[in-house]
Every structure is written in C-alpha cells, then in structure tokens.
C-alpha cells in the first residue's frame, strides 16, 4: 500500500480488516442475483420463442374434395405464406405426423385414410412480429382461401407472456433490492472505516495537508479495499456458477436451458466488482470531504 513517501499506511485494526470481506459477500450476492436473472431471462426467452414465434393455419377440406386437390391447395398456401415478410418459414405437416398427434384421441390404428381430415400448416414467424402483422396475414389468407384459418395460439401466448412479465418484475425487484443493499453496505462499511480514521484526518488537516491530498489517501485505500472485496466476491460467484452448471447438467430437464452464461453476460457480471470499488472510492471521498468541510 505504501508507494512512495506521499502514502500514508492506514490502520489495520480488526474492524477495518473485515471491510473487504463484507464487500466480497455483498458482491457475491449481487453477482448471484444478476446471474440468476440473466439465466431466468434466457429460460423465458427460450420458452416464449418456442411458443410465440409460431402459428398454425388450418385448411378445412371442401365437400367432395379429393385428397390431391386439398394437398394442392395446401401447397399453394405454403408458397404464398413463405413469400410474406412476417413469416420465417411455413411447413405443411404431413398426414402421418397429424396421425401421431391424434393418437391419444383416435388410437394408433385409427383408419385415417377415409376421413375428411383438415390439413395443418406450421408457421414460424419472423423476429419482431406484432399482433398487427398477424392481422395482415389473416386478411391475406381470407382472400386467398376462405377455408383456411389462422390460429396464433393467442390464449396460450397471453398466459405465458403474463407469467414472463410477472417473473421479470420479480427478478428486477430482487436485483434492485440486492443492489440497494450492496450499495448501502459498501457505503456503511466504508464510512465506518473512515470514522476509525477520523483522528488521522484531523491531524493531517492541522499539519497543513490539502483537502484533496487527504481525500486521495483515503480514496486510494477504499478503492483498493473495494476492488479486493469485489474481486473475491466475483471469483466466489464464478466458482459457484461453474459448480451449479456442473450439477445441473446432471439434471437433464428439457425445460431448463443450458445453465451457463455467455461472454456478454460474464462482462455484465464483471462490472459489479468495478462498481463496488467505485462506490467505495466515492463514499470515502465524500465522507472525508464532508468531515473536512466541518473544520475551519
């Protein structure tokens, strides 16, 4: 800590020594919360992508229409749909797939051939579609073929969207609270660390040290403590996340996305210790400057 004569080694009493550990703990918590939120948003993103990016077109057979004529109509609609900007891909679901879907209700050996079954087209929508674009698709279909109907999975979509929104509110609230607590604790421990040095501040002041010189000594100290604490917390969090990833890969549930963060998310996490150190630095400066301001 002593780099040249202008540095003043600050005290190492037990309560001051604890400071980086408290900061480490809070950083760890904040990192875990943030990682949790990022993973949650990945998970929800996957679910909603699975559901909300899709729609189904049901093509009803007309009276007395042959299977071939129906197939023809379906193929025409698929080509029409694929030309639309709103649609990423459209796929005619083959009859045997429909039979599979119907198996729970019709039994596996049901004689489908004789049935006037409606045909289905599976649509994957392009990114960023709104209800309005679905409406324009619907109009197009009505014009092209009055017996084709668009089902946008609306009810399900709304349900899921509501859930996603609620969970995201909760996650944001949780992160906000932990962030608030972290900031509060960092400010508190930095301030109480400074309070333990009040005598040093006064003596330096009387000896003729400039305010900015005094503040700098303490800022440097707080920055180092904050950085050390933050890094310890980050390393602990990274370790825990890695362990969780290992543990969860044994869980194999298709509903959970791979339990890991990408580079961008790691960068967001790494910002936390930096923020912690800067808060500590700023708190130290403010505390020292304010206490100097009270002196003549």
């Amino acid at each position, binding site marked *: 800590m002593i780099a040249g*004569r*202008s540095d*003043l*080694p*600050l*005290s*190492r*009493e037990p309560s001051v020594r604890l400071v980086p550990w408290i900061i480490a703990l809070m950083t760890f918590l904040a990192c875990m919360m943030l990682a949790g939120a990022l993973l949650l948003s990945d998970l929800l993103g996957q679910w909603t992508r699975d559901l909300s990016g899709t729609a189904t077109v049901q093509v009803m057979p007309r009276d007395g229409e042959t299977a071939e004529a129906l197939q023809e109509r379906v193929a025409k609609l698929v080509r029409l749909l694929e030309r639309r900007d709103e649609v990423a891909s459209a796929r005619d679901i083959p009859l045997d797939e429909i039979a599979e879907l119907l198996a729970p209700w019709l039994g596996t050996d049901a004689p489908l051939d004789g049935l006037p079954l409606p045909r289905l087209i599976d649509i994957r929508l392009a990114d960023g579609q709104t209800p309005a674009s679905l409406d324009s698709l619907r109009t197009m279909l009505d014009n092209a073929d009055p017996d084709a109907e668009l089902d946008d999975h609306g009810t399900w979509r709304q349900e899921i969207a509501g859930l996603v929104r609620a969970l995201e509110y909760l996650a944001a609230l949780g992160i906000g609270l932990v962030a608030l607590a972290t900031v509060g604790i960092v400010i508190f421990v930095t301030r109480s660390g400074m309070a333990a040095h009040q*005598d*040093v501040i*006064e*003596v*330096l*002041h*009387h*000896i*003729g*040290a*400039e*305010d900015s*010189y005094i503040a700098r000594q303490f800022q440097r100290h707080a920055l180092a403590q904050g950085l050390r604490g933050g890094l310890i917390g980050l390393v602990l969090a990274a370790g825990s996340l890695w362990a969780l990833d290992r543990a969860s890969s044994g869980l194999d549930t298709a509903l959970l996305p791979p339990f890991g963060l990408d580079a961008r998310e790691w960068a967001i996490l790494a910002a936390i210790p930096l923020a912690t150190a800067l808060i500590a630095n700023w708190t130290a400066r403010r505390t020292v400057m304010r206490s100097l301001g009270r*002196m*003549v």
Partner: protein
Amino acid sequence: MSETETFENVVRFENVGMRYGTGPEVLREVTFSLRPGSFHFLTGRSGAGKSSLLKLMYLAHRPSRGLITLFDEDIATIPRERLPFLRRHIGVVFQEFRLINHLSAFDNVALPLRVAGVREGIVRKHVEELLTWTGLADHMDARPPTLSGGQQQRVAIARAIIARPRLLLADEPTGNVDDSMGVRLLYLFEELNRLGTTVVIATHSEALISRFQHPILHLEAGGLAYQARGESAPPPPRGAFGARRPGPAGGAKP
C-alpha cells in the same frame, strides 16, 4: 508571504471573543499582538481559556467576534484553499498529543515534511536527528501506545518543530516529563526562537516560568489580564535548523 518577507506582527488579536457552540463566551475582549521572533508564556488557571486561545491561533476554531490576523493577513478573508499553506508555517504541540496511533514515532514526526513534499532522504536525516536529540533514538519504530507518557509528549514536540515553523504553539508541552527534560525542551524552543520562530507556550509550571524569563500572557476568567511587553529584535540570520520548508506559496516540491 515569502521566505524572506517580514511582518509587523505574526499574530494580532483585537477585541476577540470566542464561544463553543451556543455556550457562554470562554474568551472575551482579548487584544494583543506578537512581534516576529518573540517568545511568550501563556498562563492562567485550569479552564481559563489557554487551549482555546491557541485553537484560534492555529485555525482550529473561528472567533465569535473581533479581528485576528496571522502574518498580517486577516484570517476571515483568507480563501480556504490557502489555509493549508498557512498551516504549514504553524507548529502545534497539542495538550493531548494527538499522535497517530498506527504510525511509528518516526512516521509521526515525518508527517509534516512528507505532507509538504520534502525529499525522503532529507526527511530521514532530520527526523532521526531530532528524535535522537529528544532522547528517543531507541524508540523511533515504536508506535505511540507503546511509549510512556513523556515519550509521547516528546514525539508530539518533535512533530511540531520538525518543519521549522514561523509560529510555534505549545500547549502544556512539559506536563509529562521530568524537570530536567522540561528544561532541555525549553532550550530547544529557545534555539528555534533564536532562528526566527515566534513561540507561545501555555504552561502551568511556575518553575519553568521563573527560570526562563520570557514575557507572559496571563488569562483570567476569559480575558487577558496582562501582557508583559514582548518586543524583540528582528529575527537573527537563519542557520540549518530542522528541515527547510519548501518555498513561499507552499506548492509541494517532489
């Protein structure tokens, strides 16, 4: 204020009053002035206001009324940014020492020089010299809580004079040392005084006061009861006492 500049008065008080917070005035109608190179004892019963008067002089407290000048400048009009440089010309021995407990005796004494940006080699030389002179050669690396009362007091004195201030204010600087050490310390102050430093020593010790015949500022019930004449000759030429302070405007030189 430059190294060679001279002042009419180092300190001038005119009808100064002082109170703590909303309490009663502990100093009333105090008027006096100290010429450059003068040496005064400040006396008065316990609680008379000696430490308070010194606080005004080392800028730890503002007067509630009246005029105070330091080096012929009205302290009420000096901008805050210049005060640190003014303070570097004032050495203070606090009654309660105020040493920094987690620094060694050496580092405590070196503090004023380091704050002023003096080179480390020079710092080491002067601090060691002064600590040896005050009988603390064996305790340079000791932290204040492990020193005896008198040893702490000597560290506090060394810190006050190491930067060879223009004004030395010492509050009861011999209360914790034996009489022979007290005399030795007063010789040190006189030596400093001979080099041009204006000295004010608050003390209860009648032995010291009668032995060293310096003028007396006597406080009684918050007022200055009498001020013995303290006219003295202009400062003598300076020798190599303590470390040289950096130049006038006080900017720290590396």
